[in-house]
């Protein structure tokens, strides 16, 4: 105990005072400290020793300093002998940190001294750069080194890369190294046949970076063979990028579509099946989102360990909260208005105002923070496309909810009764179905589903009292577009609208794209007033 207090003080002191260069010098293997050893007048041998020492750290950041050294861009400042990378800027030099490359201001040229190099030093640097990272123990580190070298496109590195490729056993890393070599070959003065081969290698990589590299090369070269190969590679890469762009659009479209599906699917029950215009549907979604917020607050305060489970816990609760509100609405209001759709619309709009204001009064008007559990955050790459986990989960979730609802409607007694009541209320009643009870349950189900949607939407949207308003018109559009009384129509409608929206966005911009979609739907309704999947049967308008 007694001994630990001075230790504590000491570490505190180190923390307080050691944030500057002093801290850098403490750890022996800190490259920031070693690189400073280039400072001051010294022999070539000493410089070589520092290069070796830097290479031994295995930190790829030193590559920048080493390369600068080789190009003769590494300087040290008179006075404190601090080492910088410097580039001429007028009569002064702009200096950069040798490791991070952050700008450190400008100094007059008289203050800087160049770190002297000769050919043997340059060779030592090249060797060090090669061994430094390409031969690292860790494959991930080798991979990173190859990626860095790819962007650098440094002809001097061809030799080390060849050596590394020969020694490499991991095929993925090897491929990356070959790409790095190809980029270096394009920048070198090797024969045209080699460059043509390199262009082919880049064509298999086929991303935007190799495209710019090839375009630059094709513009600069005058050798017909190499140029032809580069042009072929450019076309191939452009096709590949176009393909991935389309895939990305579809993916974004599916993602937007699944959000629309979630928002609309409850409405497909209340509006589509029951024919009740529930303008408070968006507020049911909002209640679900706020339930998630409440659950997370409780967990944060009482059982932080459960945070990863917060969404799972929130799901049934959100269903219950929104379902109960829906049940109360149906029993207290909507059942008096059956057969008067316009009045229902107005009354439920009133309810939506009240719910919004109630939430605003209780939780305040500002956005509430709903956290993403770990499994919902982050992203991974598929080809040239980045896929975020939360979008992926929401698509999965939307489909699961959709299938579950389909199962409820088609496979349970409640679903059977619901369909019976919708198709012929009086006949159903005559068969002994308690139609008022079925109405209440149907409405509660639709509202509960909206609550579940709210849990998912809380992950990608701002949780505020206005959350629901943003979805209500879109939801109605989806249901009307897809066809009333048909869940499949809602699915197809949501996905179509999502994808069309995302494909229009690049040409028309987000807002205009949305407007175009709305106009298209309005025109579509003119053509098919009953939506994509119209219910078959005979209707007479009231």
């Amino acid at each position, binding site marked *: 105990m007694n001994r630990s207090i001075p230790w504590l003080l000491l570490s505190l002191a180190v923390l307080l005072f050691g944030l500057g260069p002093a801290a850098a010098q403490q750890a022996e293997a800190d490259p920031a400290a070693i690189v400073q050893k280039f400072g001051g007048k010294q022999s070539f041998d000493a410089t070589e020793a520092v290069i070796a020492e830097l290479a031994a750290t295995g930190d790829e950041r030193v590559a920048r300093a080493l390369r600068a050294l080789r190009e003769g861009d590494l300087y040290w400042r008179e006075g404190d002998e601090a080492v910088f990378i410097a580039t001429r800027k007028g009569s002064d030099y702009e200096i950069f940190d040798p490791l991070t490359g952050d700008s450190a201001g400008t100094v007059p040229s008289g203050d800087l001294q160049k770190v002297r190099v000769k050919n043997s030093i340059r060779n030592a640097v090249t060797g060090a750069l090669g061994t430094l990272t390409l031969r690292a123990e860790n494959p991930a580190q080798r991979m990173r080194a190859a990626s860095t070298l790819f962007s650098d496109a440094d002809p001097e590195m061809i030799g080390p890369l060849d050596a590394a490729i020969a020694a490499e056993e991991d095929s993925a890393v090897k491929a990356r190294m070959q790409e790095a070599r190809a980029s270096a070959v394009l920048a070198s003065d090797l024969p045209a046949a080699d460059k043509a081969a390199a262009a082919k290698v880049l064509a298999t990589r086929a991303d935007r970076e190799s495209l710019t590299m090839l375009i630059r090369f094709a513009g600069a070269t005058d050798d017909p063979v190499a140029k032809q190969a580069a042009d072929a590679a450019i076309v191939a890469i452009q096709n590949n990028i176009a393909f991935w762009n389309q895939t990305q659009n579809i993916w974004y479209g599916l993602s937007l579509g699944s959000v629309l599906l979630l928002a609309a699917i409850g409405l497909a029950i209340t509006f589509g099946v029951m024919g009740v215009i529930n303008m408070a549907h968006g507020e049911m979604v909002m209640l679900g989102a706020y339930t998630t917020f409440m659950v997370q607050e409780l967990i944060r305060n009482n059982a932080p360990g459960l945070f990863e489970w917060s969404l799972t816990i929130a799901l049934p609760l959100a269903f219950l909260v929104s379902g109960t509100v829906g049940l109360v609405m149906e029993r207290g209001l909507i059942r008096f*208005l059956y057969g008067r759709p316009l*009045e229902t619309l107005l009354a439920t*709009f009133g309810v939506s105002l009240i719910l919004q204001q109630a939430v605003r009064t209780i939780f305040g008007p500002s956005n509430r923070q709903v956290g993403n559990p770990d499994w919902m955050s982050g992203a991974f790459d598929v080809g040239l496309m980045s896929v975020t986990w939360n979008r992926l989960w929401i698509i999965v979730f939307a489909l699961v909810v959709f299938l579950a609802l389909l199962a409820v409607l088609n496979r349970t007694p409640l679903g059977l009764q619901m369909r019976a009541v919708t198709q012929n209320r009086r006949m159903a009643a005559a068969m002994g179905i308690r139609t008022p009870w079925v109405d209440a349950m149907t409405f509660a189900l639709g509202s509960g589903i909206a609550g579940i949607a709210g849990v998912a939407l809380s992950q990608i949207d701002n949780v505020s009292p206005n959350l629901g308003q943003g979805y209500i018109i879109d939801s109605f*559009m989806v249901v009307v577009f897809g066809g009333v009384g048909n869940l499949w129509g809602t699915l197809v409608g949501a996905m179509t609208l999502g994808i069309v929206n995302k494909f229009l966005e690049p040409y028309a911009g987000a807002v205009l794209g949305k407007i175009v979609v709305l106009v298209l739907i309005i025109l579509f309704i*003119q053509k098919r007033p009953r939506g994509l999947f119209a219910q078959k049967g005979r209707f007479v308008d009231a």
Partner: protein
Amino acid sequence: MILARFLGPRVWILIAAILAAAILVPLSNLALPADHPLHVPSYLVPLFGKYVCYALLALALDLVWGYCGILSLGHGAFFALGGYAMGMYLMRQIGARGVYGNPELPDFMVFLNWKELPWYWTGFDQFWFAALMVMLVPGLLAFVFGFFAFRSRVTGVYLSIITQAMTYALLLAFFRNDMGFGGNNGLTDFKDILGFSIQADATRAGLFAASCIALALGVLLVGWITRSKLGKLMIAVRDAESRTRFIGWRPEYVKLFAFTVSAVMAGIAGALYVPQVGIINPGEFSPVNSIEIVVWAAVGGRGTLIGPVIGALLVNYGKTVFTALAPEFWLFLLGGLFVFVTLLLPRGIVGTIDHGWDALRATRRAKEAEKGETAGTDVVPDPAE
């Protein structure tokens, strides 16, 4: 005059009251000294003017909803379009007095680095052109929209939803800066109208009187339409569209007529609203605004001439009072009003009074008849006869 007989005394009282307000309010504002008990303070005049514009808007909605059964949830769009047309005229009147002092371009265009006026702004420096556009633009939109919608028999809730989508799409469109309507901020900083300063009390009084006259004319117009043969047809379409069609009428044309006339009225209301409020921005297009209009008409009593006027005045007066007293409370109240009116007062105030009156008269007549009957049975033939 046939109208006099058809409209009934109540409507004439309303029109007289509106015209009286058109004279008395400006008079008391301008002529009476500020400490006189009957003096109307200057800040109230544009507020009253706003109510009157809303009343005209509610009346316009009543024409389609109350008399023709089309629940439009997009009437705010026609109102806002009329407002924008007027706003464009007022914008051009600013001339070189804007912040950037550009005689040709409004401030926001200078700010966006535009070099010349977009083609659709030409002509708006002329009042007659703007006034024409105030009616033409909403009317044309309603005509085209209605033509397609009614022809393909989009009715009921579907129509309500697509009208709402229409105003929503316009909301999004007008929020864009590239549209050339001032984007988010809309059009504001107006200086004068027809050469009169827009801030002056006299101008505001004049605008108020103009709004009142427009409302009175609106009541007359709607009264005339609904009491005509066409009006009977509208009511027939409202009550039994299919049957009307089977008899041989074309309901879509009837509806199209009502919808277009109503949109023009809404546009005029918007045009009168903008100079009194001093700003028009895309918020006017928001679907909630359009639904609020419906509740004015519903509260007052749809399908009557005086109902929407009374409803709009009452609800908006309540809004002013409550948003000042307890802003949080207002949305609860408005929401409650929606529920209350649809559930318990489906005919609105005027409709309920009428209905109650009729019911009362019916029972009295029944009673009298009963009395007469019993009296009749009591009457024993006079033996003397």
